[in-house]
């Protein structure tokens, strides 16, 4: 028999058992619904590390005929406490094929096979004495147990529930699978580790593994995001042209293709981020992500995720002035701070013109008499902020999203850029964005510095 810890998540129907399992197993594919009986059979969700199972969670159907089951159990007169689990086993064995007790058999089986009990209740609804029969049946199973208070609605009856549950379960914890984050997940696991002495070690191991997994996901997200930024910022689209000069149609066609490429890259990046966080089935708010409507290339988008022209000028002045001040410093003040002044003016003026300047269209002569039209890299100074703002926000929302949530991902938040654009971050980003446009000459150090900065912002947002 396997020695790893097992936990059966049980309870009344529709109390969020599957949501809790989805959240703890990081699996967004589990069917969750407010129709009783959504979970029809028990399913094990093992946490495996290189094929070795560390612990296993069981999602189970809810109690349907608890009173009837308990009545069957009570048919045995004066069962001593040490024999009660045998009585439950006998019941499960006897009714294995009985359709009437299908749900109870499914939920009791893993417990009788050694799984710890995680009893889930909805603490946003009043306590009811009818739950006591379920709790009594679970007590008969004689396995280590804890209760989870899940707050599905807005009201809070946790006090009443805690008083009642405390009489049946060793531990009572609050866990909301819809809003739970990584640290709450880990806290719950720490509680589960206390249920049985032998389970402490494997659960601690699981905690380390999950922490590492979380860090890995953060790093992978940063890599994906940074690679995407480099790819888009340095993107050059080439198109052959028929004559000496590109016709307006050829220019328009090239611009469309260029935009299409950027949109494709954004789509690819979004998919990768969602895959990293195991949210492959995620449904996004189309209105927000439909780039045709938001328009990466329109000025309006700047106020959503990019900087406003004013912010951009301030940021560019600051960067230019810093560069100028360095010259002043090298000249030990002989330049009378002219460097900072000139640098600031140059940066600011550049930003003023760069705001509307989207991309350059060039016609380059090629060998063998062929000519081609090139578009890019994107010159708009605000463009990297639009790009980064959108991507960071998406990545952040995906990373924070619980696997129990089934609704659309809402990606509208106009205040998001404020976090991104805090003083030091803005200066750092401005410098690095200029370098990212030259992918061929991009030094490893620049890339690392950019990753470090993005990670800092990302972790803060998380």
């Amino acid at each position, binding site marked *: 028999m396997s020695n790893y810890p097992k936990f059966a998540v049980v309870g009344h129907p529709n109390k969020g058992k599957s949501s809790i399992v989805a959240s703890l*197993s990081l699996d967004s594919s589990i069917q969750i619904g407010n129709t*009783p009986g959504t979970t029809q*059979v028990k399913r094990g969700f093992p946490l495996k590390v290189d094929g070795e199972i560390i612990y296993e969670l069981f999602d189970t159907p809810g109690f349907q*005929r608890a009173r009837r089951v308990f009545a069957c159990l009570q048919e045995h007169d004066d069962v001593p406490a040490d024999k009660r689990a045998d009585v439950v086993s006998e019941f499960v064995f006897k009714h294995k094929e009985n359709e009437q007790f299908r749900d109870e058999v499914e939920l009791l089986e893993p417990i009788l096979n050694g799984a710890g009990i995680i009893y889930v209740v909805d603490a946003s609804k009043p306590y*009811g004495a009818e739950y*006591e029969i379920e709790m009594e049946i679970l007590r008969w199973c004689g396995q280590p147990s804890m209760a989870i208070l899940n707050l599905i609605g807005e009201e809070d009856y946790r006090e009443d529930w805690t008083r009642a549950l405390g009489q049946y379960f060793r531990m009572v914890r609050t866990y909301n699978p819809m809003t739970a984050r990584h640290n709450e997940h880990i806290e719950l696991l720490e509680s589960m580790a206390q249920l049985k002495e032998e389970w402490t070690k494997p659960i601690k191991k699981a905690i380390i593994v999950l922490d590492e997994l979380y860090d*890995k996901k953060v790093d992978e997200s940063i890599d994906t995001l940074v690679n995407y930024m480099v790819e888009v910022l340095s993107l050059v689209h080439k198109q052959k042209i028929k004559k000496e000069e590109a016709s307006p149609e050829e220019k328009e066609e090239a611009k469309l293709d260029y935009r299409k490429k950027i949109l494709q890259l954004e789509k690819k990046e979004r998919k990768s981020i969602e895959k990293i966080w195991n949210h492959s089935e995620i449904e996004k708010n189309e209105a927000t992500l439909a780039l045709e409507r938001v328009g990466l290339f329109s000025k309006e988008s700047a106020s959503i995720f990019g900087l406003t022209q004013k912010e951009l000028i301030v940021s560019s002045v600051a960067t230019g002035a810093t560069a100028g001040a360095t010259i002043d410093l090298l000249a030990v003040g002989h330049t009378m701070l002219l460097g900072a002044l000139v640098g600031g003016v140059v940066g600011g003026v550049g930003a003023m013109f760069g705001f509307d300047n989207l991309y350059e269209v060039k016609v380059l002569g090629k060998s063998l008499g062929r000519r081609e039209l090139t578009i890019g890299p994107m010159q708009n100074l605000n463009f990297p902020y639009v790009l980064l703002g959108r991507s960071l926000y998406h990545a952040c929302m995906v990373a924070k999203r619980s696997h129990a949530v089934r609704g659309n991902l809402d990606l509208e938040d106009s205040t998001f850029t404020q976090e991104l654009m805090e003083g030091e971050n803005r200066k750092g980003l401005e410098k690095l964005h200029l370098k990212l446009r030259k992918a061929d000459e991009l030094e490893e150090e620049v890339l690392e510095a950019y990753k470090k900065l993005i990670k800092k912002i990302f972790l803060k947002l998380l």
Partner: protein
Amino acid sequence: MKNNTANFSLKSYLDLAQLLTKYRGTHEENRAFALSQKEQGLKLLSLWKDKNLHRVLDELDSFKYLHYLTLFTSLFGFTLLLLGFFTGVALLSYSGSQPVNVIYLLLVMVGFPLFSMFLSLLSLFTGNIGAKIFSHFSPLYYLEKVINFFPFAKQIDFSALPFSSTLSKWIFLKRLQLFSFLFALGLFLALVFTVVSKDIAFAWSSTLAIDPVAFQHVLSFLASPWQNFFPSSVPSLELIEVSHYFRLGDKLDANMVQNADKLGAWWKFLAMATLTYALLLRLVFWFMMKLGFNQQLKKEVLRLEGVKKLLKEFYTPFVSTASLKPEQHLEVKNESTFLATEIFSDKYASLLAWNYDEKTLLLLQDTNKITATKSYVVGGKNSFAQDKAIVDGLQGKVLIYVKAWEPPTMDFMDFLEEVLAKGSVNSVEVCPLGTANENYSSNASDMKMWLQKLETIHSEKLEVIDV
């Protein structure tokens, strides 16, 4: 200690790059592969490439590129060998009237190779700028342009190959050493061939007024690598003096004619100089470039898109949380044809409160102003016998209060069916109620859940009340 580095060749590098564009494996597969191997690092990467290369169904880029490179190398190698040979023959052409100028030979056989080696070093230490200047000095730069017009070159998209400018520089420099070696070999063979087949008189001549003693010092310095092994191949001061030649005069100096047997002795020095500086030193350079190329290739392998992730996957434990058992998907009906009424009847024969206590039952009765002859608490902690006794006594119109937020369990459905089956019961109204804080009003989603479940009973006696 395990050997963690593998000698990636250009072929394996190209193969890996092409494979990575087609296939990268999953974390699970890659980790399983890494655990099954003893090797680590690049060697492990190389084994992974060998294992998965069959997945590339197109023609390998390496095959086309290396074919091109081999063809290019062979063509130019052979051309340069011939060029070297004929240059040597031309330089050593001796009509019998004028001797062959040693200085001229030294410039081509020693000076030129040393200069090109210097440029190679320059390009190594000055990055790409040096390489760019250097490439424009070399005829190979132009030859490479010419080769682009050959049909086989058009079969390869060079811009798509994963070569950085630094790697291209190393490929170029390594090959340049080979071409220079072959050119020098041609020269050397021409020297041997000419010396054997002809009787050549060597002399030295320069517009600059070079003192024979100073010249001898220079030559001795040049000959220092071999003077201890082959002292006869170091030109003596006497040989230098007798072979000093002036361009004026239409015939050879009498002194030179007198020492005609000695003039041929220069060949040993020339042969050793070519062997040492143009061939052996070139081999050393070739070896250096080979080492540099291998080092650069290793760096480039690590920079290939996907490699870092792959290596990370090799060393990071694979964590999975998915269930092995497929989900039994429940088809959820969105709409219910069963409709709820909003008005209570005037009077009920019995009022049942499912899963409520006595106190709440009285409160509910009072709140909703329900007139019922009898009222009972059912379900909850009641035994089946208690419930059965209540059901046995039911008749007429029955109202059942249920908690709207609690889903209708089978326990309730069994009870309801029992009540409906009772002949003395005319009708049954089920009323899902909200919490006290909601003023006992049920919300739409809870009501929908009850309607959907209750309609499965298909009884004309059954009604649902939505307050």
